[in-house]
């Protein structure tokens, strides 16, 4: 029984078998199926639009693309397309940053300290079930129709998932991991820095992702109500002037912008949690 040999047997084998290209293999290829589903969707969309099933309220995909391209080099309400995208993105980023910088440490702190928890929890439970959109009107009354009210709504909306996930991330850590630190001669401080924080990272990042998507919902709600810039404004203006291309274009752009920002959070997570990087390979 040679030792190195046994170790090799225990190792997980990552090797992929290479097969020849057959028709069956092409038809069951993931990328092929991805492409098929997208193309079918576009064809159905185009068909529904051409047949006027929603009367004139659904634009054809190509017209939406043309509308978006048109906006990139023509000003709309004094700002070109990039200006509108940036206006929304900026609000999201500011609101989301404020919320996460406050909520994540607060959530961690609540989970670690019963007194902080006892003081903050009732307030949090009171505001938690309140939909962030419910704050739109009061935000306008308090802060007017400027940037502050929009950022305020985003902060309110993205605060809750951030805090909740950080809180639960710490509470769900296996308590035996703290025993390991104690047995190794570590202090309470060591338990927090070597177990509590890193163990809760994945939950914290899951919370950040949810917060980000809530932030995009909130910015849209805020811009639909009162704004002269942003993607929500484009959608609203599209509705007011009966331009389905503008409404659909705005929707697509919001999706694209939201996807991009969530990719940024993904990259950040991979940087900070390198141990999660290989898990999908197993």
């Amino acid at each position, binding site marked *: 029984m040679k030792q190195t040999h046994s170790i090799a047997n*225990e190792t997980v084998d990552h090797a992929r078998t290479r097969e020849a290209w057959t028709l069956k293999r092409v038809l069951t290829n993931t990328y092929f199926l991805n492409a098929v589903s997208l193309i079918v969707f576009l064809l159905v969309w185009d068909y529904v639009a051409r047949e006027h099933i929603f009367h004139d309220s659904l634009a054809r995909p190509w017209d939406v693309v043309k509308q978006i391209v048109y906006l990139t080099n023509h000003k709309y309400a004094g700002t070109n397309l990039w200006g509108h995208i940036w206006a929304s993105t900026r609000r999201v980023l500011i609101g989301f940053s404020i919320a996460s910088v406050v909520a994540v440490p607060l959530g961690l702190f609540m989970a670690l300290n019963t007194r902080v928890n006892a003081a903050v929890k009732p307030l949090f439970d009171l505001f938690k079930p309140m939909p962030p959109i419910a704050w739109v009107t009061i935000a306008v009354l308090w802060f007017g129709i400027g940037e502050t009210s929009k950022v305020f709504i985003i902060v309110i909306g993205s605060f809750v998932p951030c805090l909740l996930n950080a809180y639960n991330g710490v509470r769900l850590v296996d308590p035996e991991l703290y025993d390991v*630190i*104690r*047995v*190794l001669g570590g202090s309470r401080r060591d338990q927090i820095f*070597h177990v509590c924080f890193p163990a809760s990272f994945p939950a914290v990042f899951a919370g950040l992702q949810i917060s980000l998507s809530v932030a995009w919902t909130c910015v849209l709600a805020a811009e639909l109500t009162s704004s002269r810039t942003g993607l929500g404004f484009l959608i609203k203006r599209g509705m007011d002037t009966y331009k389905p291309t503008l409404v659909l274009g705005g929707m697509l752009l919001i999706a694209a912008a939201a996807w991009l920002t969530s990719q940024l959070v993904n990259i950040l997570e991979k940087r900070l949690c*390198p141990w999660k990087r290989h898990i999908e390979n197993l």
Partner: protein
Amino acid sequence: MNANEQLLKIRCENISKTFIQKGNQEVPVIRDVNVDVRENEFLVICGPGQCGKSTLLRIIAGLEIPDTGTVLLDGKPVEGPGADRGMVFQSYMLFAWKTVRHNVELGLKLRGVPPKERQEIAQRYIDMVGLQGFENHYPHQLSGGMKQRVGIARAYANAPTVMLLDEPFGQLDAQTRMFMQHEIARIWEQEKRTVIFVTNNIDEALFLADRIVLMEGKLPGTVKTEYKVDLPRPREHISMDLLRLRKVITDNTELVL
């Protein structure tokens, strides 16, 4: 027999522990347990599931405080966990966010050993458990047997005088388990420590132990008897002497479902 091996290392005196469950229900887990462990002895605490053997180990580790009785380590009462006792856990308890090397180094890091020195020590124990080449792997990239090797290296690297192993191979498949038993015997021969090894597996106990403490199979757990296993090492699972002793022990163990 080395004279050193007769020195008393740990003495458990009248240890009792009762847990309070939800609804104020009292569950007595162990009662009046007296166990002595000699220096560099390989002591196996053996008993069926739910007999309080892991609780006894956690009390020796200082992770639980007994209701009555004391644990004396080198003559001094144990008041909490400390780096003088290393522990290996049944479910490995590796830090998923640390590489093998950083898992093994952690105890040294917590005690302020400079990076270069702790890397050397960690490497020595990584080599000892046969994980050279896996230093920069994360735990999820390792198999169960390899994970527990990291657990063993992590405990050893912290230079404890006592090693506490809580059913360390309980989650491994039969083949790997047998192989790991050879490994832990080899490691113990190589780096003699006082070892307290908890298991529910009589074969494992016989293969490893200098002495077996057999615990009663119901709560509250008590010590039933002790067996001295005076067989030469390295042992074979199927040697006649070992099997004869096995028969004695199994006859003395009631089946608990």
